[in-house]
Structures are given as C-alpha cells and as structure tokens.
C-alpha cells in the first residue's frame, strides 16, 4: 500500500483544467473578491447599527448626566425676625407662610451693594431658584429658635445660572493684558488705555464683519437695480455700503461692541468693566464691579475676558455672569447631587421639576397591568394549550391573538378613549385606566410567552400525573404550570418592560396633563415616565432638555434592570428536557 505510484494518464478533467487554468484562476479571484465584498456589506450594516446605538447613548448621557447635579449658592442667610415672624408669636402657620424667598433675596442683594438699579436688583435675586425658599423654610420650621441668628444654607440656583456653571451658556476666553492699563475711574462709564494694542485682534474681526456687510449691501443694490428699483433706493443702499466700507478702511477707527458680538470684559484692580467701544489700544466701557482704585495696572496683573456667545443669544446677561463669577470666586457655589430630581413632582421651573410623580404613576399603572394581564394571560394560555378543542372558535382566538400583538399601540389608545372613558365614564388621566389599556396591549405578548412555556413542558410530565389518577386540571395546575412558571415570568417581565416604555396609548386617555402632585391612588390624575419625557421634550427651555435626557436615563435604567431580570431568570431556570 505504500509503494503505490502514478502511472496512468492524468485524468481528462485535470488536463482540461490545466489548459484553462488561467481563466479558472481569474474566475476564482473574481469570486473571492465578490465574497469579500459581500462580507463587508454585512460588517458595514452591523457597524452602522452599533454606531447608531453608541451615538444614541452618548448623546443621551452627555445631555442628561449634568441634570443629576445642581449648583447651590452656599451663603450665610440672616434669619431676620422682622421679616419671618413680624408678630413675634412663633405661630407655625405664620412661620410656614413667611416670604422666605424674600429673605434669601435680601441676603444675596446685601452681597452686592453696588447693584442699586431696580431692574438689576430683580435680576440679581432671580439668579436664585424659586425653590431657594424651601431650605430656609425647612430650617426655620425645624428649628424655630434659629430665628434671629444667621444660618449657613445651600440655596438652589435658577436653571439658567445652573446651566451657566455647567458650561452650557458661553465659553470664556481669558487673555492676560500685555501692556500697562490705565483706567480713567472706578465706577460708571470709564475709559481704559493700554500701552500695547490689546484690542486690535478683536477689532480686526469686527472690521472684517463690517466689510462683509458692505459687500452684501452692494450686491443687494446691484440686484435691485437690475430688477428695476428706483434710483433713490439703489443710491441709499450704495451710500450705506460706502459708510461701512469707510469704517473698514480706517485702520484705527474705534468700533462699538453690541450684543450680537461676543462680549468683552476687562478685569482690573479687583473690578470688572464691560467694554462698549474698542480701538487698538484704548476702550471705553461700563463698570460692572467697582474697581478698588484707578491706578495703573502692570502687564499680567489684569486680563481681557471674551464671552464667546453674543449676549443676545444667551439667557444669562454679562452682568449676571459677573455676579455669578464673583460668587464662585468666593467659593460660594457648590455642585451637589440633585436629589430633588427624584423627590419632586413636575414643575414649570426646570430646576424644581422632578420625576417622582411620573415614576409613581408608572408604578401604579404597572401594578394594575400586572394584576390584570398575568392571571388572564396565563389562564388563556392554559386553556388554548391544554383544554381548547381544535375547532374554528379556537382558530379564531389564535389568529386574533397573533393579530392583536401587531396592532399599533395607538389603536389601543382609541379603544381606551372610546370604551373606557366615553362609554364606561372612567376618570381621565387615571393610572387605573392606563393600566387597563396597557393590560390589553401586553396581553397577547404574555399569552404567547406563556403558551410557549407550557408547550415546552414535555408530555411525559402530564402523562405521569394522569397515570396516578389526577384529573387533567390537576395535572396542569399541579405539575405543568409550576414547571412553566419561569418561562411565564420571563415573558411577563418583558411584557411589563414593554408597558413601561409605551407612550402613545396613554396620550389618548389623557395621561398627558401637567400634574404637579404625586399621585396616591389608582384614580388620581397622573402621568407616567415616558409621557413625562414627551412633555418635557416639548418645552422650549434649555434646562428641560437636560431633564428630558435625565428622565430617559432613569427609564433606560429601569428597562435595563427588568430585562436583566428576565435574562437572569431564563438562564437560571433554563431546562433542557
């Protein structure tokens, strides 16, 4: 067997192959290229999905995580007896209804004695959230003896101030002064003179802008001229363009800063000046924080701050930025975990809005759903799988269940509206009705899961029970059902996760109202977490965007935990027969 040899002629096919080897080789290469291409299509498709998920999570988390912290102003607040308890009787009712926000505002105003203008004083106080009264009230009510003393308290900032500290309002560029700066005064409108061209780079940007505007005007003039406008109109545009061009051409002509350009602030001698007009080396401006002196400032001891977002594009004015920065530099701003987000109900004020009402609503609704659809679903599954005769009625039920599983969820909302609310006169916005609709919505899912679980129990178990004289029902309820239970529970959890994330049908039955109070019963008006997300996402305030994303994070965590439980159950109780 080892001494074999090839003596015969090469097989015909092999010979043929040698002749056309080149063609064949080429063809093979072509086919392998097609193979690689096809494989890459798959890789690209998968990567696309995964990239999408990654983008989704990254953007949601980046938007939402800041909302889990909140900035507080930590300040000594004098609890003046005359404003909290003017009557001096220490009556709880009177103490509870005192104007604590006023007390907090007064304490804040006292920190900025230079702010005298009425409008500015209002703006200053509005840096505090309306919720700033709460810690004060809690302090006073908990400890009435503290009236008259001074308490160090953390007061929540307004949403805009909070966003400012989270970096969502404007970027700040700081450039140290290169020359010697001489201010002309310490308060009011003053001029600043530097020994070097501190402001020229900004001036160039502004002038370039002017030139662009001039060019646009000329183009517009040409356009309307050719389209037959009057000579006067054309002339007027040309004239405007010429003036602008002149400003651009004058290299050292001073230019005014307006609120559509980035704001420039100068910090010198402990004060801050907002520049209103700049030239290469000189500038005039309004003092926002008084200077300690009008003496010359050495190079490097002063700086120019540029707030990159123009003032008209942000909710926090230059003045407010200055006040907030002053508080921050004194170490009075603290970033804390935002417990209020989990303990408060909804609110029109973004910094006070929380999800407790929505979570409670979701919880109440899920209890109703669970209580209805698990028994009904499991019993329906038992009947269909174990007892139902094979006839057209059973067929109809089966087709029906499969179809219901694919009916759009909003149609269940229509059902809830027409039947539960309108026909049975059930209350609007109630978790009970929401749970009812959701139960019908997830019922097919649970029936299908339960049937699969019951089917997976081998007939031998059933036959064993019947063999010892149990009735069919006893065999099912004593033996089959317990064995099918893990599968049923897995299906139930997945169904509940589905109900937790579902939104559309609840909008139909009025669970979309703005509800501040945390619901306490199944018939209270309530909203649920996904609807809360929808409501917040519709609000224009920037701060609500972060709240929306934060609520989404909470929802995703709940779903993640529920699905994790389902997977655990499946793994833990998975049984191969």
């Amino acid at each position, binding site marked *: *067997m080892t*001494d*074999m*040899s*090839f*003596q*015969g*002629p*090469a*097989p*015909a*096919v*092999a010979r*043929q*192959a040698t002749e056309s080897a080149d*063609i*064949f080789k080429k*063809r*093979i290469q072509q*086919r*392998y290229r097609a193979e690689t291409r096809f494989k890459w299509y798959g890789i690209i498709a998968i990567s696309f999905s995964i990239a999408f998920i990654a983008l989704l999570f990254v953007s949601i988390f980046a938007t939402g995580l800041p909302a889990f912290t909140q900035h507080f102003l930590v300040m000594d607040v004098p609890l003046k007896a005359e404003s909290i308890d003017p009557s001096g009787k220490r009556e709880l009712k009177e103490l509870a209804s005192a104007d604590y926000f006023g007390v907090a505002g007064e304490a804040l105003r006292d920190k900025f004695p230079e702010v005298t203008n009425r409008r500015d004083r209002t703006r200053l106080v509005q840096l505090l959230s309306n919720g700033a009264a709460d810690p004060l009230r809690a302090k006073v009510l908990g400890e009435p003896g503290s009236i008259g003393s001074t308490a160090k308290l953390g007061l929540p900032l307004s949403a805009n101030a909070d966003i400012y500290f989270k970096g969502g309002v404007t970027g700040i560029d700081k450039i140290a002064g290169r020359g010697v700066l001489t201010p002309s005064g310490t308060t009011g409108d003053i001029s600043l003179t530097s020994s070097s061209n501190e402001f020229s780079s900004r001036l160039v940007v502004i002038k370039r802008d002017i030139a662009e505007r001039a060019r646009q005007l000329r183009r517009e003039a040409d356009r309307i001229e050719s389209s037959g406008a009057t000579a006067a109109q054309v002339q007027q545009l040309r004239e405007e363009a010429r003036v602008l061009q002149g400003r651009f051409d004058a290299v050292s002509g001073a230019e005014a800063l307006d609120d559509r350009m980035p704001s420039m602030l100068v910090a010198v001698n402990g004060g801050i000046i907002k520049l209103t007009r700049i030239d290469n080396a000189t500038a005039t401006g309004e003092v926002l924080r008084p200077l300690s002196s009008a003496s010359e400032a050495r190079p490097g001891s002063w700086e120019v701050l540029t707030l990159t977002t123009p003032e008209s594009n942000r909710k926090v004015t230059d003045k407010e930025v200055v006040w907030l920065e002053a508080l921050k530099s004194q170490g009075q701003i603290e970033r804390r975990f935002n417990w209020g987000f989990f303990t408060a109900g909804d609110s029109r004020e973004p910094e006070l809005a929380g999800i407790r009402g929505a979570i409670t609503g979701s919880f109440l609704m899920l209890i109703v759903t669970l209580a209805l659809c698990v028994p009904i679903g499991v019993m329906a599954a038992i009947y269909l799988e174990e007892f139902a005769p094979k006839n057209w009625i059973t067929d109809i039920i089966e087709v029906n269940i499969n179809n219901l599983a694919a009916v759009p969820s909003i149609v269940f909302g229509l059902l809830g509206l027409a039947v539960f609310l309108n026909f049975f006169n059930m209350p609007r916005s109630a978790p009970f009705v929401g749970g009812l609709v959701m139960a019908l919505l997830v019922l097919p899912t649970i029936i299908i899961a339960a049937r699969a679980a019951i089917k997976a129990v081998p007939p031998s178990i059933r036959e064993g029970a019947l063999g010892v004289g149990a009735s069919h029902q006893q065999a099912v309820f004593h033996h089959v059902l317990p064995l099918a239970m893990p599968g049923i529970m897995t299906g139930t959890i997945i169904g509940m996760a589905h109900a937790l994330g579902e939104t559309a049908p609840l909008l139909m039955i009025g669970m979309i109202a703005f509800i501040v109070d945390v619901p306490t019963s199944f018939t209270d008006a309530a909203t649920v977490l996904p609807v809360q997300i929808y409501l917040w996402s519709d609000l224009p305030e920037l701060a609500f965007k972060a709240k929306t994303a934060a609520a989404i994070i909470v929802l995703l965590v709940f779903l993640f935990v529920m699905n994790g439980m389902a997977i655990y159950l499946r793994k833990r109780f998975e049984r191969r027969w």
Partner: protein
Amino acid sequence: MTMEAATATLTAGNDRPVHSAPQGPIKIQARDVNVYYGDKHAIKHLDVDIPQHSVMAFIGPSGCGKSTFLRCINRMNDTIPICRVTGKIEIDRRDIYDPSLDVVQLRAHIGMVFQKPNPFPKSIYDNVAYGPKIHGLARTKSEIDAIVESSLRKAGLWEEVKDRLAESGTGLSGGQQQRLCIARAIAVSPDVILMDEPCSALDPIATAKVEELIDELKSNYTIIIVTHSMQQAARVSQRTAFFHLGTLVEEGPTDVIFSTPKDKRTNDYITGRFG
C-alpha cells in the same frame, strides 16, 4: 480499475495483512488521518488508497466514522467549527489540506451526493445549471443548456424531465430528486463523486436505478460510496473498506472482503453479528 484487475491482484498472492494494494493509478491517498470533534477522536490513524475510475464502498456500523472520513475528502468538515483534521489526504498527489489550496476549487473537482436528496428550491434546470454558473464553466446560454442536458442524460433523468425543466426540483419523486442531485454534481465535471448513503431514503426501484447509474458513472469518475447496505456495497463497488469505532479495520477487493475477511470484526459485521 476493473473487477478483473482486482481479482488479479488477489490471485497474485499477498501475505500482508491488508489484502492487496490496488492496481492502476491511485486517485486518493490518505495517510495517518485523524479527525477530532472537540474532544472526541472520531477517526484514528487512517490509511487508505483509492484507485481511479472505480467504486469504493465504505461500510461499517453507525457512528464508525465512514461518513466523517467521506466529508474530509471534500473538506465539508470545515463548516463545523469544532472539527479538526490531522494527517494527509492527497488527491492526484496534491495535499488537500495544504493551506495554499483553495477549498472552493477543490470542491469543484469533487462532487457530493447526500443521504437525503437536497435539490435547491429552484427549477430542475437551475439546479443543474447552478454549478456551471458559479464556476463560470460556460459563457453562453447554449453552452449551459448543453451541460444541463448532458448532465441529466448521464444521470439518466433526461427522458423523464426534459419537458418540465422549468418546474421546481422539489416536486420530483425521491429517486428522481436524488438523480437530480447526481446530475447537479456531475454538471461541474468533477473527478471524484462522494456519495453519502445516497439510497437510504429511496425505495427499492429508485435504488436500483441509482445503483445502475453508479455503475455507468465509474468509467469516468472515481466514486466513493458510504452505505449501510452490504448488498449494495457488493453490487456496486470494486473495493470495500470496513470501518469500526473510528478505525479502518480492513480494506480490499469487495468480493474478498465479503467472502474471506481477515479480521474477526469484519466477519462478525458482514455475517450480521452486530451493526
């Protein structure tokens, strides 16, 4: 290789444990082949020579490794991730497990027919044309038509299906389906055809037709057939190899194996003591 040649080898006398080395050119040569499925050692130290243009039958009890070895010859085991093959299998002196060898090209030269007829859910015509099309064996429609017709003729199916080539291959009877699969295999002009119990799902008449076909095909192709039926092995093959528990127990001319086996296990098996 013919029956006469095999008998000649026998009469020439051979005192080695294996009956005889085959005469004529060797098509497939296996040396020290081992196959593992994960931890399971499915084939142990297998050596065999398979002569050209003959029918070689692999027999043995279930799970003895005969199908596994068959699937090694066209590397179908590659599709099973846990399967590992060591040793050497050469076809025309070329190692088929050589990393530089292209498995697609290899399979184009080795046709395979499976236990259960598995026509593609396409028309009869497309079933046969599938191989020539993917391998680019024909440029024009008429060339493909010619290949389809000649393959179906060789498979003895032409007369039965020539009027309904556009009908689905799955609509044929079991025996026709299996002959269609054979036609599909020979359409790419392979040198070797592997048959994995090709008649186990067929009735006796269909079986007879397929066996007749195998006998005709052996003049052009090297055929290896795995079978459970010893009568079939005796009817169609020139040489027979007996597998038992992953080892090749005995190999030789079919009539010798069935009349005077050397090994007791072979004797037990062919006399029906086990299996």
